[in-house]
């Protein structure tokens, strides 16, 4: 069943699909970074495929390879019960990729974790903060060139954290009040 999904993906986007494999029963498409968002939208919304769940996002650091990183998306369709994996190569120089948070909500935290662990930026992510490590952490621990025994400097006490009240006011209340005043 997912073989059919892979075939229709290749037929729809021949210019963005770099390679496909189906080893061990897992259908995989290697996608060019430029086509990711378009393909994600299509996979989500196409009625025959209906990949409505993004099970997981992770990355792999192939240190010696060029491009160095690969971001991996595991897709599942709850209604059609088929799976597909997308792999997107990302270069080592200030790695970044377009975010799929607009397509699947689960990408929000999953992409935060990839940023945290591998330092890959996701353009268009609404809130790209570290999720497992603390903000002051230096480096990205799951990169292959991050030593296993690396220690981090002790950090000072934080003076002031994010002020959620201020944030709430500037983001929502003030803006809404202004918008209301501007109304005739």
């Amino acid at each position, binding site marked *: 069943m997912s073989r059919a999904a892979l075939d229709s993906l290749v037929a729809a986007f021949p210019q963005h699909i770099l390679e496909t494999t189906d*080893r*061990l*029963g*897992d259908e*995989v498409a290697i996608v060019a970074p430029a086509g990711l968002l378009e393909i994600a939208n299509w996979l989500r919304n196409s009625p025959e495929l209906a990949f*409505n*769940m*993004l*099970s*997981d996002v*992770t990355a*792999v*650091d192939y240190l010696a390879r060029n491009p160095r990183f690969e971001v*991996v998306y*595991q897709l599942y369709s*709850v209604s059609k*019960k088929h*799976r597909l*994996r997308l792999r997107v190569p990302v270069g080592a120089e200030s790695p970044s990729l377009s975010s799929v948070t607009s397509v*699947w*909500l*689960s990408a*929000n*935290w*999953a992409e935060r*974790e990839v940023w945290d*662990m591998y330092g890959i930026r996701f353009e268009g992510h609404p809130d790209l903060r*570290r*999720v*497992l*490590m*603390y903000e002051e952490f230096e480096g990205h*621990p*799951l990169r292959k060139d991050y030593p*296993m025994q690396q220690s981090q400097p002790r950090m000072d006490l934080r003076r002031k954290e*994010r*002020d*959620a*009240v201020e944030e*709430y006011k500037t*983001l*929502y*209340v003030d803006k*809404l*009040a202004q918008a*209301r005043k501007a109304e005739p």
Partner: protein
Amino acid sequence: MNRAIADALAAAPERGVQEDVMVLNMGPSHPAMHGTVRMVLTLDGETVIKCDPEIGYLHRGFEKQCENATWSQVFPYTDRLNYCSPLLNNFGYALAVEKMLGIKATDRCNYIRTILGEMARLADHFTSLGAGALELGAMSAFLYAVEARDHIWDLVEEVTGARLTVSFARIGGLKEDLPDNFAERWEATEPRLWDVIKKLDQLSTKNRIFMDRMMNTGVIGADEAVSLGFTGPVLRSTGVAYDIRKDSPYFAYDRVDFEVPVGTNGDNFDRYLVRLEEMKQSISIIRQCLKGLPGGPLNVDDPHIMLPPKELVYNSIEGMINHFKLIFEGIQVPAGEVYSYTEAANGELGFYIVSNGTGKPYKLRVRPPCFYFMGGIDRMIEGGMLSDIIPTFDTINMIGGEVDR
């Protein structure tokens, strides 16, 4: 932030100082946050208008450690992922590596894995329901549930030698067979479990306080839950019958008969009911498996994967070399990548593994079900009352070891 609430607040007349919103720091050292999660809440009175969950307090570098361990040395780490049901994590990981190696476990092994896995699921659900009831003030329900869990752990101890850190699975099989009297022991335990399930049902399901706290709190819709990557009882409570045991059966799940309970409202009460019903199904699965338990070998017969028996190790040079190679160099897994998924107690537990053809994983990613619950919990909490956080956080059954890895 819920747009509708923000709109309503902004439209309200001038607010005095006492009526202003406040920030409450809930956790990480808060008994209801299970010790490992911090929530930065913005409150308007007792209504939560913004929730920012913060995880990572139990992070111990699971994936980094696994990249520096042989394939078999990963098992003890997986015990500590979901520490309420370590057997399920063990089996999930073993299945992933077996998929990579292209081998199939024997029939007997599959049945035993199903039995032990369902026992772990029972223990997990007992913990979840009991602790959930406790945090709503029902101490006695908790004590009954923990007693039942203890009965299961006694059995687990008899089989594996440990109650929690079991490390019982092996790639291609199991550490040991079931003890001879296992079926009789189960016969003795089963009525006690039924008894506790019945008691839990009587104590909670029609309890007015319990119902008021659970019904229509922490609501999530089906489409939203799917998009957020929710799986397991939380997704099934919204009416989506996604259960990997049914949809892509593994172990012996295609040879047993069981139902997948689903809810309708996606609220805390439905999640509670789904778990309660799943426990009954688990008991029925165990009974069917014990009835149909096939004989034959337990482990795959392949010296490249399974350790030789101890007599050969101590008495023959070939056995000793075999043992030495497997322990020091590890099982040689062919290069490639695989994503394997099983239904753990909280939902889809996935392992994405990349091998470069050596004895250690090049990359080992765990897809913990709870991580995605935490990513979407703000949608279940915002707009509700502060006190609704407690049952919501309980029924998603977040496990710190799994979320933070």
